[in-house]
């Protein structure tokens, strides 16, 4: 075929452009470490990467929720533990009070300790979080757990926290029976504080109080157990999420990250093609019949 002289220049231009385009692309890939720079580079991989990134975002949020929920449950657990200790101390006091050998003065003295424990329990039952919300009032968290009249104003419902797709864990427990218990304790404390009180006279009430306390203690221990169980579920969920997240990140690397070895080879071949074209052009453009005549 007949070749026009300026065809060499055109060919050289096209070759330069193609090689430069390839070089720019591979250098961008190397600089960013990404194989897929824009969706059209590999639309399927881009789609899968986007979906992985969506899933990662959701997993990250669930893991954040788990962290926040764990600390919230921990606060409840610590408070309930203090309540349990106070109840235990109250029980020791009641057992002592049930002793028929106590004098009226002894019982009067005990009422002072009982008052302190009553106040502490009342305070703990009405614990609030940083935003002033009651911990043990169920979802009616703006209502006190035990009001001035010893009534429980909350409810038994749980606040469900999303920790996975269609999976939630309760964030609170309610202390429904605490009001009634404290009312009874308050009444007994009043009796013990009365001058001239006798061990025999209060014996039946003290025994009834011990029974009520044992029930409450069992209830509180059960709540602590519930919270522990939820913490376990949360740890398991967190581990699961972490594994899935790791697998996702691995897939994202496989799909989207550049293979530097392969990229370096490509870079070399573009550079080589460019050099060869330049040399060929330099040679060819030296050939002119006009130089010979």
């Amino acid at each position, binding site marked *: 075929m007949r070749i026009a002289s300026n065809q060499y220049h055109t060919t050289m231009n096209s070759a330069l452009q193609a090689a430069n385009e390839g070089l720019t692309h591979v250098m961008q890939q190397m600089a960013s470490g990404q194989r897929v720079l824009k969706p059209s580079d590999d639309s399927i991989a881009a789609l899968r990467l986007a979906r992985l990134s969506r899933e990662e975002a959701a997993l990250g949020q669930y893991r954040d929720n788990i962290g926040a929920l764990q600390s919230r449950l921990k606060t409840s657990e610590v408070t309930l533990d203090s309540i349990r200790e106070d109840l235990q101390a109250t029980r020791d006091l009641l057992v002592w009070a049930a002793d028929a050998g106590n004098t009226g003065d002894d019982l009067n003295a005990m009422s002072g300790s009982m008052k302190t424990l009553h106040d502490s329990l009342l305070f703990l039952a009405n614990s609030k979080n940083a935003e002033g919300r009651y911990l043990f009032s169920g979802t009616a968290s703006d209502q006190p757990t035990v009001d001035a009249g010893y009534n429980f104003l909350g409810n038994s419902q749980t*606040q469900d926290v999303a920790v996975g797709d269609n999976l939630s864990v309760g964030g609170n427990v309610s202390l429904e029976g605490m009001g009634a218990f404290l009312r009874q304790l308050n009444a007994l404390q009043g009796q013990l504080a009365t001058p001239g009180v006798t061990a025999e006279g209060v014996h039946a009430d003290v025994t009834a109080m011990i029974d009520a306390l044992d029930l409450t203690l069992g209830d509180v221990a059960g709540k602590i157990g519930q919270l522990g169980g939820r913490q376990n579920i949360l740890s398991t969920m967190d581990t699961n999420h972490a594994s899935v997240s790791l697998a996702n990140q691995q897939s994202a690397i496989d799909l989207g990250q550049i293979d530097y070895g392969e990229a370096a080879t490509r870079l070399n071949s573009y550079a080589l093609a460019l050099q060869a074209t330049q040399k060929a052009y330099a040679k060819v453009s030296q050939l002119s*019949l006009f130089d010979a005549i």
Partner: protein
Amino acid sequence: MSILLNGLTGAQAAQAALGATSQNVANAMTPGFTRTGVLLGSMQTPQGGAGVQVSKLLRFADSFKNVQLWQATSQLGQYSAGQSYLTQLEQVMSDDTANINNGIDQFFAALNAASVQPESGPLREAVLTAADGLVKRFDSLQQLFTNQQTAISTQRDGVVNQINALTQDIALLNKQIAAGRATGMNDAGLQDARDEKIKALSSLASLQVVDTPDGAKSVSLKGGQPLVVGADAATLSTAGPGVLNLKFANTTFTITDIGQGGQLGGLADLQKQVLGPMRTTISELALGIGNAFNAQLALGFAPPAGTPGAPLFDTSGGTLKMTGITASQLAFSSSPTVSGDSGNLTALIALKNRPMTITTFDSAGNAAGSTQIITGDVFTQLVGKLGVASSLNQASQKTATTVRDQSEEDWKSSAGVNTDEEAINLMQYQQMYQANMKVVAVANQLFDSTLQMLG
């Protein structure tokens, strides 16, 4: 005497050939220049040879190759016109920190975070902030679409103006060439100029070019609507999106720019097949999220207010906006009295995986029914589609570039100048000139000898 005259015609023919060669060498790098040459023919009289004549000045044009080149130029124009817009969209929409998906993720993340403590003020504020962020992302994407729309329509106006200027030029050149033919003028330069204009025009729209006996070229659009007939040119003007008016000799045609090829058709394709459907989907996604959210909020309560929840988004104007409700007005509770309830919040979170109705489009960009896609995946699929459209266009552009380069090479193989060839011509015609001058000298000597004999 005939020796002297033969020598003279030979020297003159060699000069003409050298003239053509020098013109070729001078224009070796001129774009669109078609090389020239001379066609020599011997002159015969009944008395014998009467020398040589330049029977024709040749222009090495190949009209078939011209047509191929113009077609290839149209194809390239069509695929190149839209690519820069597609690349820009791709870059903006796939940017993982700025795209809509990220906004949706952050919004639902804020809702999820609120579920840890649904009555918490700061967590509720975070939901409002994330919702506002989502609205702004939709805003800025829609702004980008609007900007592209403006850029495309400006470019379209520019293309139409260029078409008008080029058709005027071609019509004028037709007139000059026809006039030149009548007086026997050499019109090689005019023809080169006209071919270059047609090539420039073919990058703007697909053309049909027909030669007429008077040397003029009639140019029409792919569908046959005339652009240039002889010395008359049509005037094109835009008349709203997708519609053009073509005025020729007091008749006005209304045509569509879809399918016209070249940059004109490429821009129309981009708008109809990619931008239009994408704008629709983004708008459906924005309003879909807003309406679904408002509907769910209306089913809940924000105690202590005992009335159903107020809407978070304002979708009345066809775009997503915030209504400006406060954090405490977010209806996360499913009870009108219990403030710490999170029943409705759970339902709001579940909206992420609820399907919404999205219009589907055929490859020509016409609505073709609808499909159900879950909220979190609409944008992902949209970016996927954009990626496919862009990579298809890039592949077509690459093919068109190769075909155009090939056609250009083909065209040059007959019309382009090869300097080595011209060097040979130069030597050959120089020798021819020298030989003929020798003949003249010999004839002169013979004449002298004859005169001496007589003297």
